[in-house]
């Protein structure tokens, strides 16, 4: 009965509905032009980026101090658990409770080291936010476009930020530098390690531990080399 009623509205009603749908969709199409930019998200990105630049600009920092400063910046402003979960794909369902806890701790350490190491390549730069646009229908995600500009005349490096609105304000989920989303890259390596070890989750934990140990070793070697250089300089 109701189905019948729904199926045959009079032509006038039908036209009215179509007209309304067209009008509403036009309104939605027209809206983003004026309402797309999210100023609070852009301000957040500006703040995080200027802090990163400030850290990179600290001349006297040892690698340990640099890492410590980045740790505070990253852990405070990134949604590390979500990145960790995303990086597991469907393997997120496989770890035990202890493995989950260990994984989340390790992934935080790993992300701090990888991002700090990759960021430290950038020196002598300026930062500019270009635009922002909402992602998804829930209004909880924003993509902010920006670029790193160099005083040396090197071509600017485009950087996009994928932000999530949380109860504690914005959190960075992912960063795209020169076309590469970092979390996506981690996901493909993490999944690959688990799959190539027959689905054994602990193999991933072992790989991450090895990587962290290696990064610590590299960092300490850097420190000793720097110390040695200072020592030779002072003896000469």
């Amino acid at each position: 009965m109701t189905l019948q009623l729904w199926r045959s509205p009079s032509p006038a009603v039908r036209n009215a509905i179509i007209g309304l749908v067209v009008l509403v969709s036009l309104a939605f199409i027209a809206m983003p032009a004026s309402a797309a930019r999210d100023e609070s998200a852009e301000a957040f990105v500006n703040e995080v980026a200027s802090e990163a630049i400030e850290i990179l600009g600290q001349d006297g920092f040892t690698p340990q101090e640099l890492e410590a400063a980045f740790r505070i910046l990253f852990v405070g402003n990134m949604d590390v658990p979500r990145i960790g979960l995303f990086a597991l794909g469907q393997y997120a369902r496989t770890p035990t409770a202890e493995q989950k806890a260990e994984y989340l701790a390790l992934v935080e350490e790993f992300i701090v080291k990888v991002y700090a190491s990759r960021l430290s390549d950038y020196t002598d730069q300026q930062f500019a936010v270009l635009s922002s646009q909402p992602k998804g229908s829930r209004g909880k995600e924003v993509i902010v476009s920006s670029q790193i500009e160099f005083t040396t005349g090197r071509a600017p490096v485009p950087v996009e930020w994928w932000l999530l609105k949380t109860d504690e304000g914005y959190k960075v989920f992912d960063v795209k530098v020169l076309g590469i989303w970092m979390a996506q890259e981690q996901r493909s390596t993490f999944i690959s390690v688990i799959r190539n070890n027959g689905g054994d989750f602990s193999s991933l934990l072992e790989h991450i531990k090895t990587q962290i140990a290696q990064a610590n070793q590299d960092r300490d070697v850097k420190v000793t080399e720097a110390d040695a250089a200072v020592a030779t300089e002072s003896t000469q």
Partner: protein
Amino acid sequence: MNIEFGRNSLSSMVAVFGLAVILSGCATRPDTADAAAVAAYEEANDPIEPLNRYFFELNNFLDIILLRPSAEIYDGVLPTIAKDGVRNFLDNLRSPVILANDLLQGEWDRAGDTTARFGINTTAGVLGLGDPATGWGYARHGEDFGQTLAVYGVGEGPYFYAPVLGPAPPRDLAGFGVDLFFDPLTYIFWDKAYTIPVTRFVLNGIDLRARNLDTLDEIERTSIDYYAAIRSLYRQSRADEIQNGVTDIEALPDISNIDFTSHE
């Protein structure tokens, strides 16, 4: 023995690819009962992964004994201005290929940029050694037939890592072959010695390697699986090139509600 239009390098690559496809039967498919493994297998889209990893190791070996040392010497010996000259010259030589693909993609503005760049850099830039066009508002962009195919809706296909050439899934491998026919040098040196085209290929490789010495070290050092990292970087940077650097927000995954029990 070669087909008339089949250059040596191209036909040997096709042969290698055929071999790869035949050997693909050896690759391990996951048990269908293991949903996570099946999802991982499909996401990787790398059915001949063992063979690809073998070629990857082979290339890493060639890199260590040959390409990397050459790139380091090149990087250390030549002053920056000379290296930039080499890069500009090689980029300028590639203009016809870029233009053909700009046109095939209907990118008229970018085709205009490519034409202007070629004119300016060949004359004011002294045979392409300089790049004044960038300063005049015609910034460089790349294009190739792999990207054109992607714009036409052709998927990348399963991952393939070729010896020497590196990542070359079917679409991009085919694009590489077609681009040879858009390249005037192919016809100029059609029935002559291949010295100049080969020199260009090698020099291009060394220059690119030299420009990525630190970057690749960094990626290798900070990845738990270098092969998988390169696979992801290749696919992502191709996707970015195909989109001409504009992020396709619709194509990004939904991450707003993932947790340890989720299916995504």
